[in-house]
């Protein structure tokens, strides 16, 4: 790796003190499909648009919301392949933690380790930053938690957050609608309404994905039938 022409880090500081590559990575995220997450009093819900490039794509084969552990799930906005790599690394880290400490990994630890990986790719030779922002939803001993992780490696805990194309409208909508004592089902309805705000075309169970985790501490991706039920309730 040392002799290559590109062995220096591509994320070098600009004169104004910014890392231009990370800014561009955030732009890549900003042009990705909208995703959002809401932390309720008794659980967390994450949701995303699932706009496929053509009607010929088998939508059942595309799963944007993934499990990291039985009680932690994640969704992204940005580049799908980068997300795949991060999910794989995170799963391995969660499993290594479990093996070493014989304890399911706390959500904050997993977020921190994933963020560390993302930061490494902004300070290593010959690599580029990840073009995804993640929303990690989990439920552990500290209760329901929602974290956003950016390409720079910074992470924040949110009560409700959105990323991707429609981020400003979605965040404004969430600010208006969010209440501290919201329950999980209310949160799911709010999530659907927020997605509907900026949705191009008809919203249906085939072009959105919803994942939730409740007090049972089991993260689940909702089936299309369940999404249809929630959509009907929202109408």
């Amino acid at each position, binding site marked *: 790796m040392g002799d290559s022409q590109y062995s220096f880090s591509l994320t070098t500081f600009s004169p104004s003190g910014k890392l231009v590559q990370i800014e561009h990575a955030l732009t890549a995220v900003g042009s990705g499909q909208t995703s959002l997450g809401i932390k309720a009093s008794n659980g967390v819900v994450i949701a995303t648009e699932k706009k496929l490039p053509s009607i010929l794509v088998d939508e059942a084969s595309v799963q944007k919301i993934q499990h990291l552990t039985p009680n932690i799930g994640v969704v992204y906005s940005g580049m799908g392949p980068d997300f795949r790599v991060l999910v794989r690394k995170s*799963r*391995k880290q969660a*499993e290594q933690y479990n093996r070493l400490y014989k304890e399911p990994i706390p959500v904050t630890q997993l977020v921190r380790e994933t963020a560390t990986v993302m930061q490494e790719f902004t300070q290593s030779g010959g690599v580029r930053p990840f073009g995804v922002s993640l929303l990690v939803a989990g439920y552990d001993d500290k209760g329901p938690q929602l974290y956003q992780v950016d390409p720079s490696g910074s992470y924040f805990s949110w009560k409700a957050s959105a990323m991707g194309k429609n981020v400003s409208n979605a965040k404004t909508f969430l600010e208006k609608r969010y209440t501290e004592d919201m329950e999980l089902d209310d949160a799911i309805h709010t999530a659907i309404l927020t997605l509907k705000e900026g949705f191009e075309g008809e919203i249906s169970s085939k072009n959105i994905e919803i994942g939730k985790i409740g007090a049972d501490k089991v993260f689940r991706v909702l089936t299309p039938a369940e999404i249809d039920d929630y959509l009907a309730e929202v109408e």
Partner: protein
Amino acid sequence: MTQSSVDVPAKGGFSFDLCKRNNMLIEKGLKAPSFLKTGTTIVGLIFKDGVILGADTRATEGPIVADKNCEKIHYMAPNIYCCGAGTAADTEAVTDMVSSQLRLHRYQTGRDSRVITALTLLKKHLFSYQGHVSAALVLGGVDITGPHLHTIYPHGSTDTLPFATMGSGSLAAMSVFEAKYKEGLTRDEGIKLVAEAICSGIFNDLGSGSNVDICVITKGNKEYLRNYMEPNPRTYVSSKGYSFTKKTEILRTKITPLMERVEITEVGEAMEE
């Protein structure tokens, strides 16, 4: 110029060059390292609806019983369990490691683990350590392709069998299986046979003892019957009670308390964390 002869290593296979040296050392009085006896009886059999695994619960340190009620049936996956004989640390570490690998694999593939996957991961690991990881395992489970039962030896070889026994009590247990096993056993018949085989190991082998653990795995369900049978209960007190024949005369009674009884009342706030 002298031509030095170079020793070219033999192409492939094992090199027996050191055998002559080893023989010479033994003649000179060097003691060859001895085998480690696996003080255990572990068994498995396939019955009509799945697999039943059984194990005794004695852990030995040479001639001493280190643990009277240890767990020899290890969890590998929700549908796969593994009995371990040999060095306890080796069996625990190896089954723990492969169980972890299987869980990661399940996340990646989204499917239930197969017994053959566990088998391959275990034998790869054991072979690469050339028998130094002293773990002899009986691996059983039910997956999408049906019920499976395998034995794995410390050097990495495996067998696939309808009924299997391992450990120092394996001969005692195998005699029971060979006499009474038949295909298509029901759950109760299978459990009875496994318990009988383990008991045979417990009572006839010094390295095995204490209780019988049983694990029944069927499609979509598993039952871990810890201490299913306890044929060696510990008796503490004689049921007849104790009686002293000669009555001793009491001259004087004086009771001195060793410690003052102190009453503690909580006042004020608890210490800050």
